């Protein structure tokens, strides 16, 4: 298959592109819609909203989740809020400003047309969510309240205390429930997609394992939508849920879909530091805390006094010092890096030295305890539960942790990958956040894709498809089903001595050390050298007890770790090739005298879309082939991103 990287961006001015596109979309007539079937993988914000909206329009939808209920999807954990260019505050916000902030926040590595469209539909999302009965925060007059987030100087983030993701997900889950009740959506829970069936460059269906019975079955459809989220769990410790994984997108990649910018991963600055070896995940403290919290470390190394005993003039408020214009509200990548730098200098606090203070004492003094509790009460409780320290008495300790992945499957303006009929939405695609995502934009993107963008794109695609489905007993299904069954059998037959978790931890450490917040050619080459060895060990020493025809979470985990082992090499390859620093991707070789990231627009202003190349062994691919989609900056000229 020749690779075409046609991004199908419509003509016209930036502001008209989406309306032009909508005017040109072809439509399926209402009574023909029932003849088309769409598969949605994932039931988070993007997946649930897409499944519900497509079903509302009349299509038959099959939706899959590996959890026991759609409501468990990890979108539920998003805390801070959702952006929308409503300008309810009259503080100078507009569609263009949201677009501009997102492009700049993404360090000029995203597609302008996609980002503008995102900003355009952002307001509609809030309208729809309010209509669904989502209890957003209100002011005393009954109007919607909003707050500020990192990298932004207007107040455009709508929120429901620190549980915005949960509320939005429950809204989408409600919409999905309604369609399940009406019989328009068939929901398959505890079902994991293990491969996508592609024949002659067209997606025809998927192969799914029922996690309770262990049964592997085939599903066909006219279009497949992947909404399986991100891959931060390749670092082992991340803010993601424990079962979040790369399998769905990686399998699609192995079937020919291009993977774009895999090295663009986001490290979130404000997480609770790890307390020991046993740690299974890291917990995020919402970025909204930086609205009122001040980040500092002791100015002198080895200052072991209690934080309250250190006078103001002996503290280093390093974000405020280095970035006076944005202060504690600099974007996530910049804040994370600054935290890492002070800790590397030995100024870090806490038992491990991997931590800085996030202090709300000044805010409590100026705004009052009640106001601060009202804003962050549930976060304080959460922090206290985990650390047994009260953040109203002693400052919180925070440290960066892997959080979000901007990279994902390559999609065009229609959110379709280079495989026809394979759409990718939400965190699983690469499209809108460039090299760094701004806070409260993930919820916006997931819902924009699911409610408003992908349904019309899928409809348009279906107008060109015949209603006949490819039979699930066809050669293409047989072949891929067989390979899935073989792989399960292979994993079970190793009978070595280490659990899947053992390998996952090792991989995570390798990736965090060499491909985490700061990357160097030397480190990346080391990782690219070590990971294949680890992978080889995995396929010789993995141990799974129990069998495959029953509920076996070790087997699920092993399959996911196996994919992470291959995929992380692609991440390192991408990180190595991109020898500039941009957004979350910081190459030590590319920084200025002050230690700020140095972008190289002349050589790297493109989307790196990688094509799978199989190797001699099933488990060890050859280095991937690079395809470049040049980025054209017509509306915003890239400049050095400055928050000083």
């Amino acid at each position, binding site marked *: 298959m020749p690779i075409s990287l046609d991004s199908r961006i419509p003509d016209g001015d930036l502001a008209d592109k989406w309306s032009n596109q909508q005017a040109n979309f072809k439509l399926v007539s209402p009574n023909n819609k029932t003849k088309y079937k769409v598969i949605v993988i994932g039931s988070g914000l993007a997946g649930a909203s897409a499944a519900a*909206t497509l079903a509302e329009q009349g299509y038959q939808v099959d939706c899959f989740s590996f959890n026991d209920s759609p409501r*468990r999807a990890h979108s*539920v954990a998003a805390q801070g809020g959702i952006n929308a260019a409503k300008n309810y505050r009259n503080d100078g916000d507009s569609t263009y400003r949201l677009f501009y902030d997102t492009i700049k926040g993404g360090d000029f590595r995203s597609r302008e047309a996609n980002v503008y469209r995102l900003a355009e539909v952002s307001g509609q999302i809030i309208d729809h969510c309010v209509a669904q009965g*989502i209890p957003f925060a209100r002011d005393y007059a009954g109007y919607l309240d909003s707050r500020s987030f990192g990298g932004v100087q207007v107040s455009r983030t709508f929120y429901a205390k620190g549980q915005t993701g949960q509320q939005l997900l429950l809204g989408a889950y409600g919409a999905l429930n309604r369609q399940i009740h009406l019989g328009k959506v068939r929901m398959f829970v505890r079902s994991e997609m293990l491969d996508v069936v592609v024949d002659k460059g067209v997606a025809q269906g998927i192969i799914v394992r029922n996690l309770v019975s262990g049964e592997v079955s085939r599903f066909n459809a006219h279009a497949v939508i992947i909404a399986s989220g991100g891959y931060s769990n390749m670092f082992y410790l991340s803010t993601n849920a424990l079962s979040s994984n790369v399998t769905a997108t990686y399998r699609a990649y192995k079937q020919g879909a291009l993977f774009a910018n895999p090295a663009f991963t986001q490290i979130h600055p404000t997480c609770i530091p790890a307390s020991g070896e046993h740690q299974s995940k890291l917990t995020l403290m919402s970025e909204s805390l930086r609205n009122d919290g001040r980040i500092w470390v002791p100015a002198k190394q080895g200052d072991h006094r209690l934080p309250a005993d250190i006078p103001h003039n002996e503290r280093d408020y390093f974000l405020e010092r280095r970035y006076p214009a944005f202060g504690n509200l600099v974007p996530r990548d910049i804040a994370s890096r600054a935290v890492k730098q002070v800790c590397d200098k030995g100024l870090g606090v806490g038992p491990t030295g991997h931590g800085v203070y996030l202090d709300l004492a000044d805010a409590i003094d100026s705004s009052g305890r009640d106001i601060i509790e009202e804003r962050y009460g549930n976060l304080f409780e959460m922090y206290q*539960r985990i650390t047994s320290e009260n953040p109203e008495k002693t400052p919180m300790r925070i440290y960066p942790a892997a959080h979000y992945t901007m990279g994902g499957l390559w999609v065009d303006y229609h959110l379709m990958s280079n495989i026809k009929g394979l759409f990718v939405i939400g965190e699983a695609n690469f499209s809108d956040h460039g090299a760094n995502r701004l806070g409260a934009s993930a919820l916006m993107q997931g819902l924009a894709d699911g409610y408003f963008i992908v*349904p019309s794109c899928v409809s348009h695609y279906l107008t060109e498809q015949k209603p006949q489905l490819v039979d699930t007993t066809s050669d293409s299904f047989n072949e891929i089903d067989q390979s899935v069954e073989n792989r399960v059998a292979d994993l079970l037959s190793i009978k070595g001595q280490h659990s899947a978790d053992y390998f996952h931890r090792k991989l995570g450490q390798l990736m965090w050390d060499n491909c985490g917040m700061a990357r160097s050619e030397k480190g990346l080459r080391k990782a690219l050298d070590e990971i294949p060895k680890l992978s080889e060990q995995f396929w010789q020493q993995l141990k799974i*007890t129990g069998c495959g025809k029953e*509920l076996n979470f070790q087997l699920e985990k092993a399959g996911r770790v196996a994919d992470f082992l291959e995929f992380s090499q692609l991440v390192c390859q991408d990180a190595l090739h991109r020898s500039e620093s941009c957004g979350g991707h910081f190459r030590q070789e590319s920084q200025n005298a002050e230690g700020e990231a140095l972008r190289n627009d002349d050589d790297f202003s493109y989307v790196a879309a990688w094509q799978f190349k199989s190797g001699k062994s099933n488990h060890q691919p050859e280095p991937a082939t690079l395809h470049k989609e040049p980025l054209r900056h017509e509306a915003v000229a890239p400049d050095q991103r400055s928050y000083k």
Partner: protein
Amino acid sequence: MANYRVNIWRQDQTEKQGRFEQYRVEDISEDMSFLEMLDVLNEKLISDDLVPVAFDHDCREGICGACGLVINGIPHGKECGTTTCQLYMRHFTADTEITIEPFRAQAFPLIKDLMVDRSSLDRVLQSGGYVSVHTGAAADANNVLIAKHKADDAFTAATCIGCGACVAVCRNASGMLFVAAKTSQLALLPQGQPERLERSLSMVKQMQDEGFGNCSNHYECEAACPKNIPASYIAQLNRDFLNASMTSKEYESQTHCKSLEE
């Protein structure tokens, strides 16, 4: 570092007989979460060629609602307002015995070990736990104003994570707090009004059909709820249900049509 003896319910499949088994876990740090303690146990079981203990869990930050174990007789353990994944070992005295059981209810069939099937809760919500708004139909978000205290009250109800602890703790395995949290959230907001009464009828009916028990106003549910959702929402549901039963027109209109046909 502490050691514990844990009694865990082991059961291979729904149909098979289950039993308690006792294991020893060693070198548990007080900063470990309860589930991390189980991870340590599972790693040990795997290295001994045994099948590890199956339990549901996912986000491990207390919001997804997947985890839920009955720990020493209380769902999610005795710490107030805490999910199992956010329960820390510092709350357990060293060298004691910890008994871990699955959620027990007719409406939650056991799948394996400590894992139960809570899809009955999903079906209750499918029967009406939403506002039937079509994507794209909404007017501007600020068109309808909502008093702050109402929005806050609705939010408190909406924080339900669907873990099922209210059912697990209830002597009657009743799902009333779960149902009431959803009906109250929507009953408190203007958007939920048009379907308010029918919603309470259909959701209560579905709850009944799923085999949940009835509410005896014991209020153990609010004590066990990891999100501290108060039982006063159940009164709200009772009120709506009573109102709906007295005023809803559904049956009358059907019989009316029939009589016309005749």
